[in-house]
């Protein structure tokens, strides 16, 4: 079975993290974002994943080569020379997706984090026998998104309404599709939108069905949603594989800690924290609702909350970091510094406090 992951472009909303690596390689819960998706695909029998990229494919491929071997799945890139929208990349990768066997293929949006109930999706798809299945997810504020209006009894999609002014439904496109190869015939090789141009045509033929995504869903393309996504993810991990979470009196709520990380005495960590490979958390540190990426050293008595600390940063003693501070790669925060929402580009030294949210270049 094949799959396409829409990786797209520059990931500017996740800067400064994406100034160091392409967005799919930004770690989420101690694993590159795209690996969560590739592993979920592998688990349902996908043997080849195509990444639709238009930025830094060499960096991606170098990284993924290692995973090809360890996961036993083939990974290739389909490079867009101009942005192809959300459907164009499918036409570009056509030969790889349609191997003549008539088997349907997955299309995933790389910014999405969810439980990936792909097995259930395959069953639902076979059962309705239609051309395409999309996952939808229930949200509180549907008018921020594109709403999918469907027949609740069988999931048959009636129409799409972009940012509706009045309530028409509360299910939005979750960015996970299962398409039969004949959908490829509908897509021209040009920048095309799958929601605006392709799906409405399939819906008109009553051949598009929606499945409500069980479990959590988050678009983690920007730092604030990234943190919310971590909370949802760890929540789900607590239910499915609680042994993966850290346990002990040092930890509060859901916390995931890489086995190579070291944590000193007298720390209080959690809730909703991820600590990456090779991190050193010295004594007396308080961490809550934050992501600590690979190779970070947090010195004694520091306190970090509601923030993202990028790879190889150093946080000084008694530093206080809060309110959606995002530190790029290799940022060094001096002792006793306060950062209230600083967004700091890579390789900076922060020697004076950041009292209100600002970007430090």
């Amino acid at each position, binding site marked *: 079975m094949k799959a396409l992951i829409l990786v797209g*472009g*520059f990931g*500017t909303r996740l*800067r*400064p993290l994406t*100034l160091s690596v392409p967005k799919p390689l930004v770690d989420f819960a101690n694993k590159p974002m795209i690996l969560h998706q590739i592993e979920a695909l592998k688990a349902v029998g996908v043997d080849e994943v195509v990444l639709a990229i238009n930025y830094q494919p060499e960096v991606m491929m170098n990284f993924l080569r290692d995973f090809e071997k360890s996961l036993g799945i083939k990974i290739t890139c389909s490079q867009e020379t101009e942005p192809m929208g959300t459907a164009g990349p499918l036409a570009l990768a056509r030969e790889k997706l349609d191997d003549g066997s008539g088997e349907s293929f997955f299309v995933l949006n790389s910014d999405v984090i969810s439980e990936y109930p792909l097995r259930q999706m395959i069953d639902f798809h076979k059962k309705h026998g239609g051309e395409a299945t999309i996952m939808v997810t229930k949200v509180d504020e549907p008018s921020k998104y594109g709403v999918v209006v469907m027949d609740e009894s069988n999931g048959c999609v009636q129409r799409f309404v972009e940012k509706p002014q009045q309530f028409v439904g509360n299910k939005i496109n979750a960015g996970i599709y299962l398409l039969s190869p004949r959908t490829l015939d509908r897509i021209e090789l040009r920048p095309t939108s799958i929601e605006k141009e392709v799906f409405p045509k399939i819906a008109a033929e009553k051949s598009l069905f929606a499945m409500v995504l069980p479990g959590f869903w988050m678009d983690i393309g920007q730092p604030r949603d990234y943190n919310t996504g971590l909370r949802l993810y760890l929540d789900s991990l607590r239910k499915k594989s609680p042994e993966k979470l850290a346990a002990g009196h040092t930890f509060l709520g859901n916390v995931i800690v890489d086995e190579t990380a070291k944590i000193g005495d007298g720390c209080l960590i959690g809730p909703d924290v991820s600590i990456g490979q090779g991190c050193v958390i010295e004594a007396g540190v308080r961490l809550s609702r934050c992501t600590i990426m690979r190779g970070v050293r947090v010195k004694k008595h520091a306190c970090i909350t509601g923030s993202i600390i990028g790879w190889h940063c150093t946080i000084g003693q008694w530093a206080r970091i809060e309110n959606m501070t995002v530190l790029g790669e290799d940022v060094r925060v*001096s002792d006793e510094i306060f950062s209230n929402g600083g*967004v700091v*580009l890579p*390789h*900076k*030294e922060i*020697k004076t406090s950041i009292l209100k949210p600002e*970007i430090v*270049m």
Partner: protein
Amino acid sequence: MENTKDMPEAISSHKKTVAVIMMGGPTKGTRFRPLSFNLAKPLFPLAGQPMVHHPILACKKIPDLAQVYLIGFYEEKDFSLYISALSNELKVPVRYLREDKPHGSAGGLYNFQDLLMEDDPTDIIVLNCDVCCSFPLTDMLAAHRKHEGIGTLLVKKVSKEIASEFGELVADPKTGELLHYAEKPETFVSDFINCGVYIFTPEIFTAIKAVTYTKHETSSLRRMSSFEALHTATNSRAMQADFVRLDQDILTPLAGKKKLYTFETNDFWEQIKTPGMSLRCSSLYLAQYRLTMPELLATGDGKRSPTIIGDVFIHRSAKVHPTAKLGPNVSISANARIGPGARLIGCIILDDVEIKENAVVMHSIVGWKSSLGRWARVQGGGDYNAKLGITILGEDVAVEDEVVVVNCIVLPHKTLNISVQDEIIL
């Protein structure tokens, strides 16, 4: 007063000069972002030529110049194209020497001593790449060869406020000897500053060696008092034995010992630390072309070629519509396209930029491959030193039709479809 009454010394066959340009490297100079994301700062164009090109051209005026060395810790590949083109064009060997790690300005010289002394030079010109000035090297070299010290510094008199940002020095008004030197002093020392242009004799290496030796000794023997530890906490690199700075570690101790002399200039002088300053310095070099190489500047009257006001540089491959009006102080790089009715003032337009009809650019830098839509307006306030004093568009930024961008810094690959002011856009 410049020593204009002294003619350059007759060149004796045993005099040889090498020039060394200190370039720095990528982890320093985050102040040059976002322009430094794509390009090593020394290659950023000022008045149509890379920043480092201007001091190199100045060195080329020295008749007995044997080689030009560029010392830095950027990757070699960042400069290989530029250097091979340059060696051909200038007919003088140019080499890039890469430091494995920063050694400080003097440490870098010492690190490559054997290479620099290869041609057995009598004089070594040392320049900082990010200095923008007229580089009066011929006159300075003549003055240097007259005294018996080991080095000559280019100095300039400035206002008190400006002086405190640099190295301040006191010179003997009769002999020009350097009597006292203080780097960025907190209290007033002098209104003469060190311009970052030096000429040394090979004895400088002995002086640097002595300092390195002392540092090795003291770093292993001395226990720091707690005050010292506090003071050097953020300067820990300077405590390393092989990190030797020219200003604090060499000039300060040697001042007043009849070893160092000064040479004064009254010409323009600036340091190019930020993109705002690069815009200012581009204008200074354009004004210098007006005096030394006016054929490089554009001319036009709005009939077959665009209307040109003041100093404007247009790369020969750029296309500018005749109804556009450019200047003063505009520099347009390769393959840029400026559409009908566009107005450009005080700006640097980098390679492959497209500016559509009736757009306006003032006091800004427009990055490589960016595009401005019709009636777009990209504007800065013109305060070169303020954090958001000019507008900088990084690589591949698209400003849509009729959008206004004022005093912003926009990182690469962004599209602006609504007007915006006083912001950094990541």
